[in-house]
């Protein structure tokens, strides 16, 4: 792992009503990566972001960013962090250009109209710079939120559900934008409940539920560890037992012997190869199957299994 840009240790947050939204979270984020925090509603994603960005006081734990303790060096730390919250929230009567310039000033950066223009152009908002925010479309409002967060050139950017409630085209647009930021060296932490999004965007994925990080790993590593291939071979005449020559494969019989089920692989393609080998072996054994159906478990299956507290299907 390269130099960590953010280190979270034992972070916990209990709200006044007694709800424990975060329950001992440890997390390290490397410089330049895109990290997706994946979890259902109410899992603690927004609380985690809020704790790092200063929106709420954590109950326990420490946070350090850029090698500085976020509590004692809050000014330096916050200056370099940008946040795009989930809700559209701004002074609706303000004009786009002014709102973005105001954000830059608030974070202590010197006025820089050229940079503001650059940010607005990159988000296709430049032609709307003199429009009031309230007159913009929903998608544009969301981009204004992003422009505000980017106005002070943060090194670490938090996007809370960046594509919740946006149409397909805008989502693609957002992904392109995030990709561009990554290429410029910005570290990005995004929350999402779209698996597709985590799969598409992130280098690493953390699965969070009920305030606990269940799993943090590279996207491919998660697939390798938990991904599964299932294959169903159907036979007209039921098999009485699993053929002896095939005992090396993870097999089971179903439907009174008319279905031979393979469950194995690791999400890297090994499962598919084994199924092909298995098919040849069956033919060699003289067993005539009449159909094959194979399925790959997706990140979605893994996610659902994890969140529901089950071990991934074997």
């Amino acid at each position, binding site marked *: 792992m390269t130099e960590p840009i953010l280190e979270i240790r034992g972070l916990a947050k209990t*709200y*006044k009503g007694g709800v424990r939204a975060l329950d001992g979270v440890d997390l390290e984020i490397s410089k330049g990566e895109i990290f997706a925090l994946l979890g259902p509603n109410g899992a603690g994603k927004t609380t985690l972001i*809020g704790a790092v*960005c*200063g*929106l*709420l*006081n954590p109950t326990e734990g420490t946070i350090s960013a850029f090698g500085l303790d976020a509590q004692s060096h*809050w*000014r*330096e730390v*916050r*200056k370099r*962090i940008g*946040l795009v*919250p989930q*809700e559209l*929230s*701004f*002074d*609706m*009567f303000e004009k786009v250009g*002014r709102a973005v310039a*105001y*954000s*830059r*000033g*608030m*974070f*202590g*950066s*010197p006025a820089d109209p050229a940079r503001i223009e650059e940010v607005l152009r990159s988000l296709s908002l430049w032609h709307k710079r003199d429009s009031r925010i309230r007159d913009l479309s929903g998608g544009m409002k969301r981009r204004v939120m992003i422009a*505000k967060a980017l106005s002070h050139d943060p090194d670490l950017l938090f996007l809370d559900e960046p594509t919740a409630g946006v149409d397909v085209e805008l989502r693609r647009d957002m992904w392109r934008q995030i990709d561009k930021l990554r290429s410029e060296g910005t570290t990005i932490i995004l929350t999402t409940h779209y698996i597709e999004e985590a799969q598409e965007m992130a280098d690493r994925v953390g699965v969070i539920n009920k305030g606990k990080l269940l799993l943090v790993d590279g996207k491919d590593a998660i697939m390798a560890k938990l991904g599964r291939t299932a294959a169903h071979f159907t036979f007209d005449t039921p098999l009485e037992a699993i053929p002896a020559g095939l005992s090396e494969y993870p097999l089971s019989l179903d439907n009174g012997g008319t279905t031979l089920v393979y469950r194995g692989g690791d999400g890297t393609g090994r499962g598919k190869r084994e199924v092909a080998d298995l098919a040849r072996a069956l033919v060699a054994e003289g067993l005539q199957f009449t159909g094959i159906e194979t399925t790959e478990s997706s990140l979605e299956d893994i996610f659902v299994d994890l969140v529901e507290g089950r071990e991934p299907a074997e």
Partner: protein
Amino acid sequence: MNARGALAILRNELSRFFRTAFGSILSPVLTTSLYLVVFGAAIGSRMDPSQFGGSSYGAFIVPGLLMLTLLSESTSNSSFGIYMPRFTGAIYELLSAPVGVAETLLGFVGAAVLKSLIISGIIMVTALLFVDYTIAHPILAFGYIILVASAFSLFGFILGIWADGFEKLQIVPLLILTPLTFLGGTFYSVKVLAEPWQTITQFNPIFYLINGLRWTFTGYSDVPIGLAFGMTVGFIALCITVIAVIFRTGWRLRG
């Protein structure tokens, strides 16, 4: 200290004020003019100047009216300034920014004070159209207006953080500040009151503010000027302490 941040907030707040300048300025000016027409010109001409430290009744009430506007404008400007981002959710940005007590006070409270000064200036000019008055201690008057504007902008800021709805935001100025201002001697000298009202008035903090300001205008005060000044400074210190505690604990700001 993030000076640029403080300045950005200050400028943003002032631009919000100028965006609605017409209403922000017109309503206090109109209210003050009405008071001056009714009390200063119509009723005041029948009043005996010896009751009011020798000045005309119109000149006597100018500082009181100025105080009336100063208190309500400072309080409402500042309370709305911080309540609006809380209401719209835009507060997230302030909380995530390198902005602390110092920057917030300079930005939000500073802007509210400046707005109050602008309105005070306009009211003093307007008052000249209706009554003849002079300012006995102009520099002290200016300083005193700044002090009072700061005190109530700070108070408004606390109100804006405390309030969890528009109703509370309106109710405190309406039910507490306005009655205290009227009963604090805006339109009369406490000497015209019978006991026990004279004594009760001594417990009204705004009574001291009005008399302090009146002294800088007319040289006349119902209370020693040192006491009036001390009360104002004490009030400011109290408000700053409360705000510092709010920021330290994150009360109503950070869950």
